[in-house]
């Protein structure tokens, strides 16, 4: 429809701006931090935000700006790694179950339903209790726990498409099952998968932040947003900035991606 004036997708625009800002912030943190995030400085104990320390310093004189840079990077790395594991494995499992169906499909999906019904933080805590804490264990635990939600999502899409005319036509032409799955059907699932990825990303960030807040996260040597918040809580009356800035970074990170996901859904609703 060429005559219709295009409406601005505010969700998409706002989400895009926020996400670009946070990603730029995190990329900056990966190559440069103004101070060593772990460096103690007796002179700067509890220093309020200033030009030298834009986010202030904590009770041990560590620069909050540098620490949020590093902590946000850790959170992003974990969240992305979790998404890769969950999405790739979920995609393969969901595609096979949805395309072929049958008894295996039924059994796998019951198991997925059962796992997906549980709050991921709780299950991750249990897995960590069994295999022990640490960055890679968290990635493994959350990654595996994220498989079912992606598998269910992808399976639903494959069930929707597997008997469509274009798939039937491809089959009649003798296209192999593998090619039908990956070349003919998979590209159609992108819109749904993308908004699923946005939700999954936020759940991963949330789970990582909660776990490091509870002290079952990455090792204490590495700055993490959840752990900064947990430390800041004891000092927040005298140094509220130690609490405010890490919280702000977490919220902006989640808000940006959730707005992007929302914008994506709105666009699909318009008939993408």
């Amino acid at each position, binding site marked *: 429809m060429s005559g219709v004036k295009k409406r601005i997708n505010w969700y998409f625009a706002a989400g895009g701006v926020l996400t670009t800002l946070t990603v730029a912030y995190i990329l900056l943190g990966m190559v440069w931090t103004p101070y060593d995030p772990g460096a103690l400085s007796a002179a700067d104990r509890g220093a309020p935000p200033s030009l030298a320390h834009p986010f202030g310093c904590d009770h041990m004189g560590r620069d909050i700006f540098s620490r949020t840079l590093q902590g946000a990077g850790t959170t992003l790395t974990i969240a992305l790694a979790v998404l890769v594991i969950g999405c790739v494995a979920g995609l393969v499992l969901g595609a096979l179950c949805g395309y072929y169906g049958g008894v295996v499909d039924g059994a796998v999906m019951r198991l997925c339903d*059962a796992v997906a*019904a*549980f*709050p991921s*933080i*709780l299950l991750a*805590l*249990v*897995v*960590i*209790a*069994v295999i022990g804490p640490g960055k890679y264990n968290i990635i493994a635990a959350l990654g595996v726990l994220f498989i079912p939600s992606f598998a269910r999502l992808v399976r639903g899409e494959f069930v929707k498409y597997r008997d469509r005319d274009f798939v039937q036509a491809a089959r009649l032409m003798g296209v192999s099952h593998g090619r039908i799955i990956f070349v003919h059907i998979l590209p159609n699932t992108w819109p749904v998968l993308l908004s699923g990825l946005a939700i999954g990303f*936020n759940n991963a960030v*949330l789970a990582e*932040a*909660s776990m490091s*807040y*509870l*002290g*079952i996260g990455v090792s204490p040597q590495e700055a993490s947003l*959840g752990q900064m*918040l947990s430390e*800041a*809580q004891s000092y*927040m*009356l005298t140094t*509220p900035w130690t*609490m405010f800035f890490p*919280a702000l970074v*977490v*919220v902006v990170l*989640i*808000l940006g991606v*959730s*707005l992007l996901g*929302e914008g994506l859904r709105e666009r699909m609703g318009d008939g993408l």
Partner: protein
Amino acid sequence: MVKTLAKRMGLLLLTLLLVTVLAFLAFSIIPGDPTSSILGVDATPEQVAVLREQLGLDLPIWQRYWNWLSQAFAGDLGTSYNFRMPVGQLMAPKMSATLLLAALSFVLIVVISIPLGILSARHAGGWLDRVVTVADQVTMSIPNFVVGIALTYLFGLVLRWFEPGSYTSATRDLAEQLRYLIFPALAVALPRSAMTVKMLRGSILSEMGQDYIRTAYSKGNSQSSVLWRHVLRNAMIPVVTFLAMAIADIVAGSIVVEQVFAVPGLGQLLISSIGNRDYPVVQAIVVLVAAVVVVCNFAADLLYRVMDPRLKGR
């Protein structure tokens, strides 16, 4: 309907059984023996052997599972390695705090989200709706423990409406407990309420576009009578299911938020037991929470069937 119910019940029991098997297996395959954490590293082999027999660790795994399950059914959840007392006794006082917190959170979610959702949908496109939608989207993005920290700062430290960390035992009177728990409950409830508002608003708006609503208007019904008598009746169906499913999330949220407000509940016990490798306690809490989740999902499913007559007999 009876046949469906029986089938669902069977599935429910099967899921519960699967949960107990998984919870038991997960903690049985862990390398390392609980005896070393109880006796310390320099225990003699004889001491270890005696304790292993006491704890029943010398039996084959299926027999240990059976003993554990049958004892659990008889009310004996095992003995905590760390506190040297029955797990049931350890959990009982903590359970009341968590239960109260979860119940309060649920009530808050309903009280906050249903009026806001209806209000927002009724004025869809207006300034009120826009304010609610923006506030909603932001609230949804704040993790519950961050809400908790902010509430502690504002109401605990600045306004001094409550004293953070003053909730100690469950023996005090209920009014005082509720007065403290209202803040952690709010922390659990706010992000979840935001999701519910969004869901309810969407559900109402999609019902508003249906043919039967146009018919109701054309018969001369006023806007409010259409809303209350026609729209909400159908729009509430997915929301009620959503709320029933939210109970699992509320329990998980309580576990984290309890840490923020120093509420001595199941969450605190779970975190400290994970740290101490006190597996009987972790196992019991996991099975309990899992059972709550499974039963709530079952209830949500039933409720859905009762509320939507089209699903009768399916």
